[in-house]
């Protein structure tokens, strides 16, 4: 990725709000053995404004969860710059900064069954962060705060002394949200918070997250594979494929007119809950599987499954460029130079 592209990526989202998080060329590689390196996240750049929700979508194994975990420093990034609230948190950070980050960034996990300690009561789970970050708080105050938080997420005082197994999936996810809110963070990484829930419960949790954002000015990174829910909650959406972002756009614009061939296929693959539309629409069905992240294809990563692949796709890495204000795509079809070389018409002016 070129520096020019990075600058564009960082500046692309310029608008009214102030950037809370700016990520430049972030990489996270895992060494599996002497010869194999798994490139889970391989050079991504984006920014999130204060009070905004950025949706991060992609199929399993594309690195979307790794992005969330690297930002919250569950994983150390391999390289790249991350700036959070003016603090540089990309490389090594001291304990004080880490402590501050643990306070300002919180995470909501996918599986409400395994992300709560079964041997702790709800009060213990929710107040754990308070004990660490507000050691001076009196136990009585802390209990009061826990009760407030439970009420905020739609539970009540009587639930405080119970254990996680006494709750349903939706209720557990509410406990997870209360835990994340306890230390009053600015930024929440929600890693597939609704994937494990039933349809009728999903809407409850999405509405709750939206309300909390409105009341408290929270900023979200919402990671999901369910594209229809992502559209509801996100202001902008980044689509990931094999460790890179292939397209980033305002959510309405992305759904109206997806530019990258992968985004087009991904959107058309979602079955719609509307029989008439299902009967009439043309689905783009991709052949084959996602290549292994230990053995990434040369050039464009999507070329092995792309219906429009050209010679240049194997040779040149596509640049993640802005094609419209606030809209970036990494695809040669939108690159005037490459298209001229291929002797084909540019897809987008």
């Amino acid at each position, binding site marked *: 990725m070129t520096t020019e592209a990075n600058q564009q990526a960082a500046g692309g989202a310029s608008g009214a709000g102030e950037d809370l998080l700016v990520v430049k060329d972030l990489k996270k590689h895992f060494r599996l053995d002497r010869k194999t390196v798994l490139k889970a996240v391989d050079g991504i750049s984006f920014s999130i404004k204060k009070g905004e929700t950025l949706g991060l979508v992609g*199929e*399993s194994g594309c690195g979307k969860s790794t992005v969330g975990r690297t930002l919250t420093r569950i994983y150390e990034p391999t390289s790249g710059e991350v700036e959070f609230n003016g603090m540089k948190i990309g490389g090594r950070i001291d304990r004080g900064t880490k402590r501050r980050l643990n306070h300002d960034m919180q995470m909501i996990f996918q599986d409400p069954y395994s992300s709560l300690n079964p041997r702790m009561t709800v009060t213990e789970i929710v107040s754990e962060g308070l004990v660490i970050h507000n050691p001076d708080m009196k136990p009585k105050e802390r209990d009061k705060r826990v009760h407030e938080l439970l009420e905020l997420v739609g539970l009540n005082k009587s639930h405080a002394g119970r254990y996680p197994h006494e709750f*349903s999936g*939706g*209720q557990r996810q509410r406990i997870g949200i209360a835990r994340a809110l306890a230390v009053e963070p600015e930024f929440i990484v929600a890693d597939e918070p609704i994937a494990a829930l*039933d*349809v*009728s*419960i*999903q*809407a*409850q949790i*999405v*509405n709750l997250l*939206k309300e909390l954002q409105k009341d408290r000015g929270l900023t979200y990174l919402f990671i999901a*594979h369910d*594209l*229809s*829910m992502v*559209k*509801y909650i996100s202001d902008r959406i980044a689509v990931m494929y094999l460790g890179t972002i292939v397209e980033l756009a305002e*959510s*309405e614009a992305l*759904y109206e007119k997806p530019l990258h061939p992968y985004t087009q*296929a*991904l*959107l*058309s*693959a*979602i*079955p*719609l*809950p*509307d*029989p008439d*539309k*299902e009967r009439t629409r043309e*689905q783009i*069905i*991709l*052949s084959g*599987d*996602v290549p292994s992240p230990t053995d990434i294809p040369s050039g464009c990563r999507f070329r092995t499954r792309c219906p429009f692949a050209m010679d240049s796709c194997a040779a040149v890495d596509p640049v993640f460029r802005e094609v419209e204000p606030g809209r970036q795509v990494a695809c040669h079809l939108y690159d005037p130079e490459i298209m001229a070389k291929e002797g084909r018409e540019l897809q987008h002016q």
Partner: protein
Amino acid sequence: MNQNILEVDNLHVSFKTRNGAVPAVRGVSFSLKKGETLAIVGESGSGKSVTAKSIMQLLPKQNTVIPEGTIRYEGKDMLKFSNKEIQSVRGSDISMVFQDPMTSLNPTMKIGKQIMEGLSRHTQLTKKQARQRAKEMLELVGIPNPETRLDAYPHQFSGGMRQRVVIAIALACNPKILIADEPTTALDVTIQAQILRLMRNLQEKMDTGIILITHDLGVVANMADRVAVMYAGEVVEQGTLDEIFYRPQHPYTLGLLRSMPNLDASRAQPLIPIPGSPPDPSALGTGCPFAARCPYTMKVCHDYNPGAVAISESQAVRCWLQDERTPPEHIPAEIKEGRRSTEEAAADAEGVTA
């Protein structure tokens, strides 16, 4: 005429527990025709998988009780079958695809052998012919290099490929009925689209009746001819695809449809969730199981469970709002609307025939 190959009538299934019997399926009735797809939709715990497994008789014998009901396959009551009879049907005439392709294959057995297992049991094919047939099946489900892949182990396949293998195994003996229990839930959307298309193509070729169990209404709209909506062990509404999606008559069906985001709708419109959570099956009262979450409850709903009311040839609903004695001002506009269009459709149809 299309004849029903499977008829489930008033099926009850309960599980024995230390705290007494817990009913999981309570009076489920439906039928399946040749070459048709029936979708069973419902939330986790609504009894859809238990219904499927009781057809296949895969439920643990020591703690399952089926106090009432019949399951007729080609007119014969399967619940009265001996072990031997059920084994001759299971895997050949009726077969099943499970949710998780990671665990439904034997990890220590080559793929080819797993496909041939059913063939050698149910057909007279020689080993060589069975291998040939296994190769054809892999080809049919779109696995490249089928000859060499026969000797591969499950861990050498990706999730989507494994599900293809599971489908190949299920279809190897040309079943008349395929029961697919959440066949694509564990897969990514682009792979899901491949698998659903594959199932539709194979159904056309082999005229298989499919019972598709899912919680994804998008998949239902993509695949089904008819839909049965389950809640707390009952089929609360049943009808053709269009009836369920465009003229839902049960408040639960309506609620499910409304809580789903539509890709075309604007972000400003809030989702309308169904409040509360599904009831505990061991503590169901005498009333309608949905009453606690229903926005339109009346006094009667808490005390008496409604029976199924047929509102068209194909649509039936279990809801007191459908009862004649319900005063018209109690019936919410959303449900009235669906009803009026049914009547209009009927009137139109009459007009055409006259």
